[in-house]
């Protein structure tokens, strides 16, 4: 018997004990009707081939291990960034349980969000009563300053009309007439989580600026010196938004972060649960109409929101999740140009430190081959940074990337000698990536937690950058934007490179002559 009180074995070691191994063998042999070993081996090897890759890429209907989620997840991400706001998702309730779990697993934080809990009867008659009761309950129980409504695919398929439903709910007294209930239709069968973010941000902007669904006069824009900032859907939102605020403060820029969820997903353990913390105030959201310009850190997260803002007379500028020297330079120069504030020497010094760090480590990264996958903007930002480091981003894949993204990333690859022979893949999934890694191997893979299966299967070491990150803790607390954030990305990449070098040089009397203490 392996188990004992002095040294408790859990799943990591318990099942490697002989009793269990024997049990597994017997189970397999006698009851599982297993695939013969030779056949298993044959197919395993076959999946590594060019032939398999071709068949795999010929897929038209099946998606395997996609790197994207559905719209309503992004809707919740956006909504929790406003002060004392409860995201209210109209549709089936299981979805909300999923969004809450998903975010809690990534941020290791509570995520508050409610559902209108529609069931069969609502599928037949529509979910109006669910909306009427739901808004009243949420308003009374959780005392939010705002309830932001989005939808699940169920409500979309049956065609519930949010605008009409919210109006009726107000007439029935669910919430006061003047109470803020911005809304967005967020069908899960269109786009991905970044589309949901976009739709909700657009919904919130239109709500506050354009007369609150016909219940208030439209706001008149009186331009001021402020800028608005949208971070987009971002797993590093806690670290990133704080870094951006630091940079703006350093420059003396007046700003409004639209959807600032950096506090609500980073609350202290001090004896109190804060359902609400920080966030963009409703007044700030409304006054954002007067800003001089709006900056989006992620173009593909704000494709619908920016045109609306532009139509109100603001300049809009979009970046693609800038990481690295050039990306940060362009970001800062744009801020400086728009606000007229010079880039302060402290930031110039930070830039120099990043350049110094790259110079220190460049020899270890130069010429290394990478595969990257993730959201469209993140892929662009990481690719640009790798090119800057002299690395080769051989495969760049975005499940939720489209034609516009593909053109952009191909142009980026073409702009650098290090992008030669590199390819981008829009709308493909991680099973496609598996074929790519087998047929055109690379040194490192960059992606979210699900990349660990690719690491295991293909032996490509995974550097975890993306969303979600479930199996490592606290990455989301670090910025990846700005010179400092880029430094974090650099260190994560280097750590993995050095770990691999050590792993490959630590065999006594075989390879440990290269097991250097100075690298």
């Amino acid at each position, binding site marked *: 018997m392996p188990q004992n009180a002095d040294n408790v074995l859990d799943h990591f070691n318990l099942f490697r004990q002989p009793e269990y191994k024997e049990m597994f063998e017997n189970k397999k042999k006698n009851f599982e009707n297993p695939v013969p070993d030779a056949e298993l081996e044959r197919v395993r090897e076959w*999946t590594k081939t060019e032939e398999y890759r071709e068949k795999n890429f010929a897929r038209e209907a099946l998606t395997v291990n996609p790197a994207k989620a559905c719209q309503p997840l992004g809707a919740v991400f956006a909504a929790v960034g406003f002060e004392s706001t409860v995201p209210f998702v109209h549709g089936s309730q299981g979805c909300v349980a999923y969004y809450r779990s998903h975010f809690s697993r990534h941020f290791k934080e509570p995520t508050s969000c409610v559902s209108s809990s529609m069931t069969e009867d609502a599928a037949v008659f529509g979910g109006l009563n669910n909306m009427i009761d739901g808004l009243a*309950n949420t308003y009374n129980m959780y005392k939010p300053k705002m309830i932001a409504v989005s939808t699940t695919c169920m409500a979309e398929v049956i065609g519930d009309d949010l605008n009409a439903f919210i109006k009726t709910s107000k007439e029935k007294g669910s919430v006061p007439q003047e109470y803020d209930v911005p809304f967005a239709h967020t069908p899960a069968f269109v786009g991905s989580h970044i589309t949901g973010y976009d739709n909700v941000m657009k919904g919130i902007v239109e709500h506050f600026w354009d007369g609150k669904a016909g219940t208030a006069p439209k706001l008149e824009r009186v331009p001021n010196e402020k800028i608005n900032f949208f971070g987009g859907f971002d797993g590093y939102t806690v670290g990133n938004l704080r870094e951006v605020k630091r940079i703006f403060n350093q420059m003396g820029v007046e700003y409004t972060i639209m959807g600032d969820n950096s506090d609500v997903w980073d609350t202290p353990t001090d004896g109190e649960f804060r359902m609400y913390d920080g966030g963009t105030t409703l007044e700030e959201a409304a006054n954002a109409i007067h800003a001089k310009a709006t900056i989006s850190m992620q173009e593909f997260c704000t494709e619908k929101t920016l045109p609306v803002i532009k139509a109100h007379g603001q300049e809009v500028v979009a970046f693609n999740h800038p990481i690295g020297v050039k990306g940060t330079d362009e970001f800062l120069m744009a801020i400086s140009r728009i606000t007229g504030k010079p880039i302060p020497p402290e930031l110039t010094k930070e830039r120099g430190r990043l350049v110094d760090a790259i110079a220190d480590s460049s020899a270890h990264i130069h010429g290394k081959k990478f595969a990257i996958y993730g959201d469209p903007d993140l892929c662009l930002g990481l690719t640009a940074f790798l090119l800057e480091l002299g690395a080769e981003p051989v495969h760049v894949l975005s499940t939720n990337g489209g034609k516009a993204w593909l053109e952009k990333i191909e142009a980026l690859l073409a702009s650098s000698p290090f992008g030669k022979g590199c390819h981008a893949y829009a709308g493909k999934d991680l099973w496609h990536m598996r074929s790519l890694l087998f047929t055109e191997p690379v040194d490192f893979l960059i992606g979210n937690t699900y990349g660990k299966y690719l690491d295991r299967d293909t032996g490509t070491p995974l550097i975890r950058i993306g969303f979600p990150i479930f199996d490592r803790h606290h990455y989301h607390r670090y910025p990846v934007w700005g010179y400092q954030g880029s430094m974090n990305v650099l260190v994560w990449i280097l750590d993995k490179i050095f770990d691999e070098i050590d792993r490959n040089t630590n065999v006594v009397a075989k390879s440990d002559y290269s097991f250097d203490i100075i690298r």
Partner: protein
Amino acid sequence: MSVATAETVEELKARNKALIKEVLEVYPEKTAKRRAKHLGTFEDGKPDCGVKSNIKSIPGVMTIRGCAYAGSKGVVWGPIKDMIHISHGPVGCGQYSWASRRNYYIGTTGIDTFGTMQFTSDFQEKDIVFGGDKKLAKIIDEIQELFPLNKGISVQSECPIGLIGDDIEAVSKAKSKEYEGKTIVPVRCEGFRGVSQSLGHHIANDAIRDWVFDKQEGKPARFEPGPYDVAIIGDYNIGGDAWSSRILLEEMGLRVISQWSGDGTIAELEATPKAKLNVLHCYRSMNYISRHMEEKYGVPWVEYNFFGPSKIAESLRKIASHFDDKIKEGAEQVIAKYQLMIDAVIAKYRPRLEGKKVMLYVGGLRPRHVIGAYEDLGMEIVGTGYEFGHNDDYQRTTHYVKDGTLIYDDVTGYEFEKFVEKIQPDLVGSGIKEKYVFQKMGVPFRQMHSWDYSGPYHGYDGFAIFARDMDMAINAPVWKMAKAPWAA
């Protein structure tokens, strides 16, 4: 400080009553009336816990429940390792339930097993408008081509499928025929059906009946049936639970011919009606198919509980009572074999946990099943409730809970937070959505769905881990640091 010594049962009941009254005050009148039926105190001698259950959740209150898809794909079907389970509909559901339940299995993922993969039809607008049946047919073809060693396919419906009138049964039948009688199982587990995960379990059970068992009739077993054949039903092998259970059954002389569904295979499902006895761990999610096998194939079933040594010993004897003396002796030998280890575990951990108060809120089994394990460590359950229990679960709970225990069914975020705030338990056992809420409040917490990434907790080997983890949670130094020394 134990509740029992702190207050009389009468005081306890009065406190619960006042507490329930207080939380109900926040609701609009109609909601308060509805929620009142789900909150109560267990009264000794009553046939159930005095709360209503398995009723629709109220909109907007922050229910913790999931949906039928979660019950079917996430719980029942998903762990069958050599089948491919298609999350049929938009991309989200499959993504959020991708490998998050820790149903451990052994196999070469992507080649002969598929448990930690996400197969989806990733519905686009055109699929909603024109229907997804053609796409489904094509998906099955592509699966056959790229994953030739799969032993079966299940179609796990997401919300839109039932709403747009797709005929997944027709597609499944046609494709099954095309692929020489291959097992292809359409499951109508759309998330809007029913009130929680629970209906999804039931629908999934029925799908096994209709699309696996009924197809098997008259086919011989793959092995020679024996007198001691049992099947483990309703163990999802979270963190290896089914393995640390199976080993005990085998040690007592039984032969486990099948595991449902953790680390399970389609061959094992098919073999199950040949068992002499079905042993049922999660009654809530698999009593339906157990009853069916009893009615149709004459296989008796028995509920058991492998949490904590008291319940394990009781269960081993109960299971053995269905067999001859050889097995009865086997059970006694197993109990004796582990006694020393268990005594050592209790000697080590009980002094550190004695008298600690626990509040639970889990799914459909653990709100009662784990109570014995806590009591084996001298801990006390002061509140419990089910996400998706039915009245028969609350009846069974009466055998576990003490007079005066607070009971909450389909608890809302608000209620649970307030109950914990007022009762101040030493530990809360619930899920990932609740974990960090209570952590912020400074209350030690263990996830009792996923074992907080530890486990197994079932069986004797699992109990040692359970004890270690509860100690780790409650006695972690971090809780003493929650208040800054300069804060009042």
